[in-house]
């Protein structure tokens, strides 16, 4: 909502400067998003006279002018169609700076020198768009500094952020009322008196009927005869332009002026277009079509409030008028509408039509049903005085069920109870009455323009903001008992994150909204999709952390950051319905790695990472979480990993994650030209088995015995199956088993391999004897040889 300092001053006394007022309005809840001089500063522009105008030899639309600044004559090229000899103009000399920061220099235009520029209003920041240069009155002195002339009456423009609960402040008078409350001065309303022609009676011109009483609780109108359509006076044009409205003609400008002044939208119809001299307010017909005054044909949503004459629709109630009844240059008689529409109905229609107007925005937030006649009278009286119209006597006002002001009990203890303050009843009453609230003994009568005041708590805010939040007490102690019971989730996530960091991984945060194609790589199930996405590449919710992390890899590789090891923790989304019928949204953790295994250096080898690196990260991660029921087994069938290079993580017999090398298809899709490995774990599943409690196990006091051996066996036998067999056979005393070498080929033969294994035996109670260890060791050898048809390697 825009307003100017001078315009506000017409309704309220403002003892402060424009800047100070901005601060005070911000303090009571009207945030000033911008304040600036209406005319921005510029320099080097003087009043000058055009001495001659000639056509430019090489350009049809350009003229070569001689311009006199009172001391000197300059040759200037001008492109404006309205430049004429003997005109007084604002002339930007070489060295001038215009409001937009543009500096004027000597220039050559199509081969002709130009020393300066003749300015338009647009170029001097006075209007949005100009068609030609600014022609000045000849009363100015040549050579006078034009910025001084303009600045003398300069005004300030505010742009307020009006919260949706305060539609009453979408008007100059509304903000004026707040200003009056700040300074504790009365608000000066404009006059609502109308001089009527008693010889004419409204009943003879129009009849109003409301069928849709729910959508339109009040509809009133006046008839103004014999208006002369023309431009509105300059003062009105200036005001409207300042607050961002284009001047159209005097009648339209007057309705807009009243709208800006009082916040109540009005609509002017050409009376001759209202067939049957009737207005009927009804609901739209099914699939009804209507051409609005912006010349667009629209299909009306059902239940739209329509204003109709005896034959057809003439306006969409509260949103926009129709082309068929708009005020034109030859309009003579006006039917002026002032109505109150139900906010919810206007909002639904406006939304479904995709049509937001100054009127709809106010009606959907709530206008004053009892301010209908004031706005009507204000505009009618202006039409009489500024457009030469005759106001027909009487108002046609259909208001079947009067909307009466709300009453709110006044309880000063409650105010202090919420604010923690100690305000006196007198102060509270004074603040509330300053806002034109009717403060009675035990209650407040709320005028109908304040749609936001409904219950006692709303009055608390009114008192608080007028006292000023900064003047209210602040308390730094609390009497709420300490009963802190932190949720396990926080601890669990922290443990996961810290473990990842400890492994040397870098945390990334990536988007939760991804491209549908990307989601399809990571699950066969339909992803959770967004009805109104920001863009196609954010149209579905991520079902995996991998797409985001692979984008991060690609982004970095394109910038020559090659050795990457990222992790991310976050929610992913699954169609499965969980609590409250919402999609399942488990936390996951994922890692992706690519590039070199070690930071490259003079004494480290520059080998790339491989499958055992990602598996190592996963194993180390699981080690630190002390999940004793986890296992990485089963070849994974995830389509996004390479067939032979992926495995599943099993925790308590449940597939909880996967680990592997991304397939070529994926890598290509994400525009990466190197092998990338990754793992992802469902943390919600993992946390079900995670025990954060710890109990210490004594460190063994007795020495251990280590034995190495190497088995030769079929290549197809997995290391894991051998290790599992040894562990089972080794029993309690086998504390540790390490595969320290794998050898293929040589004398072993084609399909054979040798597995070298180191075993550590230890007892917590005693020193083991060689004999004892030999016994277990031999049993292991026999068992493995038998089970896998293996033999010992010499």
């Amino acid at each position, binding site marked *: 909502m825009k307003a100017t300092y001078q315009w506000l001053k017409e309704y309220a006394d403002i003892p402060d400067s424009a800047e100070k007022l901005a601060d005070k309005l911000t303090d009571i*809840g009207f*945030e000033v998003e911008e304040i600036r001089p209406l005319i921005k500063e510029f320099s080097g522009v003087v009043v000058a006279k055009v001495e001659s105008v000639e056509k430019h030899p090489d350009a049809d639309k350009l003229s070569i002018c001689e311009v006199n600044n009172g001391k000197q004559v300059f040759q200037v090229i001008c492109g404006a169609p309205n430049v004429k000899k003997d005109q007084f103009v604002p002339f930007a000399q070489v060295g001038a700076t215009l409001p937009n920061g543009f500096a004027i220099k000597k220039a050559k235009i199509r081969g002709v020198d130009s020393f300066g520029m003749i300015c338009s209003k647009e170029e001097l920041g006075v209007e949005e768009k100009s068609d030609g240069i600014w022609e000045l009155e000849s009363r100015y002195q040549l050579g006078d500094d034009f910025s001084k002339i303009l600045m003398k009456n300069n005004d300030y423009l505010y742009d307020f952020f009006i*919260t*949706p*609960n305060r539609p009453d402040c979408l008007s100059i008078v509304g903000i004026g009322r707040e200003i009056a409350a700040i300074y504790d001065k009365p608000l000066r309303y404009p006059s609502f008196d109308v001089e009527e022609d008693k010889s004419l009676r409204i009943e003879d011109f129009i009849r109003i009927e409301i069928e849709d009483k729910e959508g339109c609780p009040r509809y009133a109108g006046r008839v103004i005869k014999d208006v002369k359509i023309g431009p509105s006076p300059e003062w009105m044009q200036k005001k409207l332009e300042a607050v961002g409205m284009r001047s159209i003609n005097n009648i339209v400008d007057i309705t807009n002026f009243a709208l800006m002044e009082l916040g109540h939208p009005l609509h002017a119809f050409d009376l001759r277009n209202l067939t049957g001299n009737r207005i009927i307010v009804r609901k739209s017909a099914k699939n009804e079509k209507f051409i609005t005054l912006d010349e667009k044909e629209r299909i009306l949503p059902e239940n739209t409030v329509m204003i109709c004459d005896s034959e057809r629709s003439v306006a969409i109630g509260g949103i926009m008028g129709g082309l068929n009844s708009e005020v034109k240059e030859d309009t003579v008689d006006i039917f002026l509408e002032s109505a109150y529409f139900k*906010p*919810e109905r206007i*909002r639904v229609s406006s939304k479904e039509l995709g049509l937001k107007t100054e009127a709809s925005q106010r009606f959907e*937030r709530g206008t004053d049903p009892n301010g209908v006649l004031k706005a009507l009278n204000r505009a009618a009286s202006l039409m009489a005085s500024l457009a030469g119209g005759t106001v027909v006597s009487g108002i046609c006002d259909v208001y079947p069920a009067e909307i009466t002001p709300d009453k709110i009990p006044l309880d000063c203890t409650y105010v202090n*109870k*919420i*604010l*923690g*303050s100690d305000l006196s009843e007198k102060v509270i009453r004074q603040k509330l009455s300053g806002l034109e609230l009717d403060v009675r003994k035990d209650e407040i009568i709320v005028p109908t323009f304040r749609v936001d005041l409904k219950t006692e*708590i*709303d009055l*608390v*805010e009114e008192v*608080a*903001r007028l006292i000023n*939040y900064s003047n*209210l*007490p*602040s*308390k730094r102690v609390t*009497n*709420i008992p*300490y*009963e802190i019971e932190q*949720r396990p989730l926080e601890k669990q996530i922290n443990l996961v*994150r810290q473990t990842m*960091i400890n492994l*040397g991984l*870098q*945390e*990334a*945060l990536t*988007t*939760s*909204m991804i491209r549908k194609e990307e989601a399809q790589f990571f699950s066969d199930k339909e992803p959770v999709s*967004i*009805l*109104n996405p*920001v863009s196609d590449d*954010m149209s579905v919710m991520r079902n995996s952390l991998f797409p985001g992390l692979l984008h*991060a890899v690609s982004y*970095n590789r394109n*910038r020559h*950051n090659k*050795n*990457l*090891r*990222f992790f991310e923790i976050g*929610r992913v*989304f699954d169609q499965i319905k969980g609590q409250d019928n*919402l*999609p399942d*949204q488990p936390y996951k953790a994922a890692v992706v790695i690519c590039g070199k295994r*070690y*930071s490259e250096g003079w004494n480290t080898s520059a080998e790339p990472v491989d499958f055992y690196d990602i598996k190592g990260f996963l194993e180390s991660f699981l080690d630190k979480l002390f999940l004793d029921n986890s296992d990485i087994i089963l070849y994974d069938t995830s389509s996004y990993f390479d067939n032979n290079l992926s495995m599943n993580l099993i925790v308590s017999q449940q597939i909880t994650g996967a680990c592997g090398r991304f397939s070529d298809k994926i890598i290509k899709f994400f525009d990466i030209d190197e092998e990338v490995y990754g793992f992802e774990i469902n943390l919600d599943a993992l946390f079900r088995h995670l025990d954060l409690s710890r109990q210490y196990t004594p460190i063994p006091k007795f020495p251990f015995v280590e034995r190495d051996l190497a088995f030769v066996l079929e290549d197809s036998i997995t290391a894991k199956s051998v290790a599992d067999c040894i562990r089972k056979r080794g029993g309690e005393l086998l504390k540790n088993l390490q595969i320290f070498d794998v050898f293929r080929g040589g004398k072993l033969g084609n399909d054979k391999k040798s597995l070298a294994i180191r075993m550590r035996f230890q007892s917590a109670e005693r020193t083991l004897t060689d004999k004892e260890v030999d016994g277990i060791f031999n049993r292991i050898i026999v068992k493995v040889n038998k089970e896998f048809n293996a033999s010992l390697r010499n």
Partner: protein
Amino acid sequence: MIEIIENIKKQFEAETEKVKSLSELEELRIKYLGRKGNISNAFSLISDVPAEQKPQFGKELNQLKQQAEAVYNKIEESFKTKSKSLMLDLTLPGRRSFTGSKHPLIQTAEEIKGIFSNLGFVIEDGPEIETDYYNFGALNFPENHPSRDMQDTLFISKDVVLRTHTSPVQIRVMEKQKPPIRMIAPGRVYRRDTPDASHSPFFHQIEGLVVSEGVTFADLKGVIESFAHIMFGKDINVRFRPSFFPFTEPSVEYDFSCVFCRGKGCKVCKGTGWVEISGAGMVHPNVFKSVGYDPKKYTGYAFGMGVDRIAMLKYNINDIRIFFENDVRFLNQF
């Protein structure tokens, strides 16, 4: 005659103590272990030794020779290692490991969580895809009301949305338990905003809620001021301005004095001396009604803050998008 061996031994031990270089060591070797050295010479004396002492003399002399050789080798070895280490260029870089770090937004969130944990707040969590009821209805956003336009919402279906704020967690917690409540809820939220330097369609908030008997606006002011001082320093002022949120009344917008110029006015605060942080307010009685609390008995306050916004202030970042590009040259700075 045995004394001769003893003497050589003592002498040898004394002289080895004094050896300071490889050349001195060589002199020592020649003197004792050389072909004409003291020990070799002593062997030639064996003919003079009485027959019954000969075996003992020979044995001890051999022992001495072995010991002297061992001592010599040890000293030589130590000199050689020392000289080898002198040849290493210690200025060459060491073997480095890759190191990781927490994302700066996570670091900021942890700092904020830490502050509120110290103030006695419990950390809660809630879903990112929410029902219309939790995101709006229970928070006193009437249907078809313009207040819903304050947050441009992303919809999954008519009744399911991407939460536009962390406030639904307030409702979920209050539905589960009775006052007193003192909680914060960090998490990701979504708005239908086109990405630019100051907007991201997803970002991070931390919600706060305190409900008990006798909680007042003064408590709200106090907790926000305390947070500002712990997070950014004791000289930070807080400005509270009236605002509007359907779920709080009175509602507050709060600003901190600019953390860069400390309120003097600079580019970051556009010369105003203030930076906008977020919103807060006293819990609206309608919210209490929707969770079955008695608004006559309980009062409470709620606040929110943008983690991304605070991180941008903390690290002097002027484009929110950099957080989600994950350029390691950015992430490595934290």
